[in-house]
């Protein structure tokens, strides 16, 4: 079965962040989503800590969050029959996420 990488992006705009109360609700919804699709969600997904390093042309900078409008907050590995099925899973994901869905090449 093909595998897909879900890349979750969040906005860097503080205004768009959920309030603590909304976050609590999101936590429960997110957990329910993980439960519902536990057969499709493969181990290995994770959240990413804020900050990071950017290596470009031999120069290391802090980043990539500084000027970006969105940053990658977490990722999941999903197995699904096809893109439509993968998108259907993403659609049910709670919260106001931007989710980039990419099929794994399976080269490695």
């Amino acid at each position, binding site marked *: 079965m093909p595998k897909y990488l879900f890349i979750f992006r969040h906005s860097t705009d503080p205004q768009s962040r959920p309030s*603590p109360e909304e*976050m609590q609700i999101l*936590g429960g919804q997110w*957990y329910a989503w993980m439960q519902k699709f536990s057969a499709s969600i493969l181990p290995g997904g994770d959240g990413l800590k804020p900050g990071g390093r950017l290596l470009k042309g031999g120069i290391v900078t802090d980043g990539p969050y500084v000027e970006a409008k969105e940053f990658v907050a977490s990722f999941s590995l999903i197995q699904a029959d096809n893109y439509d099925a993968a998108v259907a899973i993403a659609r049910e994901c709670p919260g106001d996420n931007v989710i980039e869905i990419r099929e794994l090449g399976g080269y490695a």
Partner: protein
Amino acid sequence: MNEPRDLVEHFFRHEFGRLVAVLTRSLGVRRLELVEDVVQAALVQALETWSRRGVPEDPAGWLYRTARNLAIDALRRERTHAQALPRLAEDAEREAAGSGDPRRALEAHFADEIGDEPLRLLFVCCHEAVPAESRVALALKTLCGFSTAEIARALLTTDANVQKRIERARDRLRELDVDFDTPAAAQLGARLDAVLAVVYLLFSQGCHVTHGDMPIRRDLCAEARRLARMLAAQSVGDVPTVHALLALMCFHAARFDARVDLDGAIVLLEEQDRSAWNWSDVREGMAWLARSAVGDELTRYHVEAGIAWEHCRAPTFADTDWRRIAELYDTLDRIAPSPLHALGRAVAEANLHGPQAGLERLAAVPPESVPARYPGWHAVIGELHFRLGRHSAAERAWREALRLTTARADRDFLRRRLAICRPDIGEPAND
């Protein structure tokens, strides 16, 4: 590891305020925005991690460590080795060195650090240099973890306006480099009014949830009472005004259980089971009310506590002393004029002299001060029309109230009222 749903209700919001207060003490009031940012980021990280891997055994400690480490990272990035950095880093090192059980050390730290921090932060938010209209917004944001939209609904204003108020407050605190630790007793006294206004607003928000599923957010009410009790235990707060506010909150809290039925629906005062009222809250309220009745200052809290007491002491709805309540509302409107007090007065009038008299009271409120966006206003108008048999007018008012209401229990209540409206006899069908 536990499931995320095992977290106590409002855990995130509650921890937000606590962590902001604790970290503000270490980092200083001028870094309030940074503190809020790292606490927020820690919550986001918790959300990501906990929903994937379960809730850790000590979620509060997890959040504290994460927020603190994020703060250390942020300060290092700025390369401004503020005084706060050593303080925080030392704490992190102590924990890393972890003689024995690091969790025990952390708990000790918590017990030592938190104490009165939320109350202190509340006094900081109410600093006299902060514009009055900004204080409440800042306190609700930093201490109570409300979103801008939630604050806007509570203060009957717009998101943009709230955002502006909060920014102005933060700017002022930064400019003045306000100290978290040592506001003098005299300053505390001067800030007391604003502090009480915030506490009362927090309580009212809990009683009248403006959106979402819960008809009453008891944790907000409990937090407001906790802050007020703590205040009354300090010399600056051991004053009749604070006692009156405590009495008022007790009398309201006593009726919580009866205000909501088993399905979470709102129950009108006249239909409430008075035996379900919490009489230990009433007794506590009476004790505070007695203590508040000294000195020569009559505050709005005294009068409001008096009104709430009148409701509590009536054995049945029919026995309510509406004349006394009407007088108290008149006094209240004199001390603290507000269209909402006029609304309460109109309800008393309607119970004394009939719905028409109540409607006339409301009609006498100058149009410019009618809170058109406040659903309760329209709900009462609807109720009074309904009692007069004017179902079409009632329906119009209730529809308007429904349009302005976002809280589910309130919406359900209004829908139930709308369902009993019938077209008026004799009125054209297309009305």
